[in-house]
């Protein structure tokens, strides 16, 4: 595991609240996430894990407090600059979020095309990443024709193809069998060793035990003392 380099925080949350009507999904949350860190965020369902991840890529906005990514207060970020923030992230979802009408190759290449990369680079990089996740031989398949594990490998490929500094994974193995889950975690670890900061939200204790990493335990929107994992 790469040690967090000189404890430099890439993400900082200061007294962050996120209200949904009368309920607090996040309640006065203060947290630093360090560069090149592998971090697990765990806790029971409804603890605020997904909300926390969404705040980081401006899928949602904090009701109060500040969220800084790479030193930029993203709560104040103009709407037309959010795409620049999201290019810093590679996001893996539990439900994969692949475009069903586009092939594996197209789903992955989309990230680079959206970033305005030239066609040659897109082709080369997409092939390379698909090879890394072991999906090069299925690149012309449509997502519905793939197994859950394969779809998640494609989702990981899409998350890393743009060389993001931060990879966010929200219950990345929630829909997978043990073998596929282990494969996905192996991939995340690989990209972490290549320099990315990886934040995984999960309630799966087995998964947390599989990789030595810092663990944040969330309960009712607050960081609490983690029970024995």
């Amino acid at each position: 595991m790469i040690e967090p380099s000189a404890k430099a925080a890439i993400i900082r949350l200061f007294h962050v609240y996120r209200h949904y009507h009368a309920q607090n999904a996040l309640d006065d949350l203060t947290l630093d996430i360090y560069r090149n860190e592998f971090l697990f965020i765990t806790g029971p369902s409804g603890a605020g894990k997904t909300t926390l991840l969404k705040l980081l890529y401006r899928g949602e906005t904090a009701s109060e407090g500040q969220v800084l990514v790479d030193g930029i207060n993203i709560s104040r970020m103009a709407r037309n600059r959010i795409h620049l923030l999201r290019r810093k992230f590679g996001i893996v979802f539990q439900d994969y979020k692949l475009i069903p009408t586009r092939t594996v190759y197209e789903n992955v290449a989309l990230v680079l095309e959206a970033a305005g990369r030239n066609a040659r680079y897109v082709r080369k990089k997409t092939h390379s990443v698909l090879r890394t996740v072991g999906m090069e031989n299925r690149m012309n398949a449509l997502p519905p024709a793939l197994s859950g594990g394969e779809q998640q490998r494609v989702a990981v490929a899409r998350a890393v193809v743009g060389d993001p500094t931060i990879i966010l994974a929200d219950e990345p193995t929630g829909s997978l069998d043990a073998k596929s889950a282990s494969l996905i975690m192996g991939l995340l670890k690989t990209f972490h060793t290549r320099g990315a900061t990886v934040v995984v939200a999960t309630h799966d204790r087995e998964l947390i035990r599989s990789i030595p990493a810092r663990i944040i335990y969330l309960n009712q929107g607050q960081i609490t003392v983690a029970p024995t994992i």
Partner: protein
Amino acid sequence: MLSLHFKRALLDIRHNRLLNAVTITTIALSILIVSAAILFFINTTDMLEAWRRGIRIMVYLEDDLDPGRQQAIAARLKGLYGVQEARFISKQTALEHLRAQMPRQSAILEGIGQNPLPDAYEVQMIPSARTWEKAEDLAQRLEAIDGVADVEYGQRWVERFITLFNLFRLTSYAMGGLFFIASLFIVGNTVRLILYTRREEVEIMRLVGATERFILAPFYFQSMIQGILGGIAGLAALLIMFMLIQSKIQAVAVGGTVALRFLSPGLMMAIVAASALVGWLGCHLSLKQYLKA
């Protein structure tokens, strides 16, 4: 990047064939109707222009004028502004012309006894005065000359026709406007429906860092392609209809005096470009609403 969006737009059209076919057909119908009106205007204007070029005024004289008064009238005619030439046609010459034009009815003309036709002057106007307004003005001045019984210019009814023509033109503008709005609405609706079916895809694209421009560009391309295809289809339908009825209309309505013509290539290109613009605008208005929501 443009070719990527264009490819994406073509794929989207293929995926939503029925929806796109309905949109293209609506645009084609609008273009057909508007282009038919333009075609009508062009050919009618040609016809009016041909008639205008041939304006001549017949000045009929009172019966039994002595040669002196005839000459005085001729002198006054030629002195009026707008008159290029005034040719005397005696009642005898007029009767002979009539006989020559109506060979089958010669028996009727034989039986009339005394020549009922008046002596007349055929007045040709100078080119700059060959407008319907100036012809009317000259006709009124000619009527005021002492010894002139009546004045007639063959296409006097054209004035009434022009009034009708202008009315039709206004109606066509209104119809064109309505079809324009209808096309905008249909294109906009198609874009909205496609956006609705692809809302998840749009959301995913946003999550991976795509700009709004990147996400929405294929919609603009798609709508412009719809506009272009609709424009071409509408013009093709008009051309087929024109070829089918051209010869009949030529003989009946124009009497062979003017050759009917189809829209020029430049005008057709302008119509297709306008149709593409309608597609673009319909898409733009729809997306503007979508982005606000």
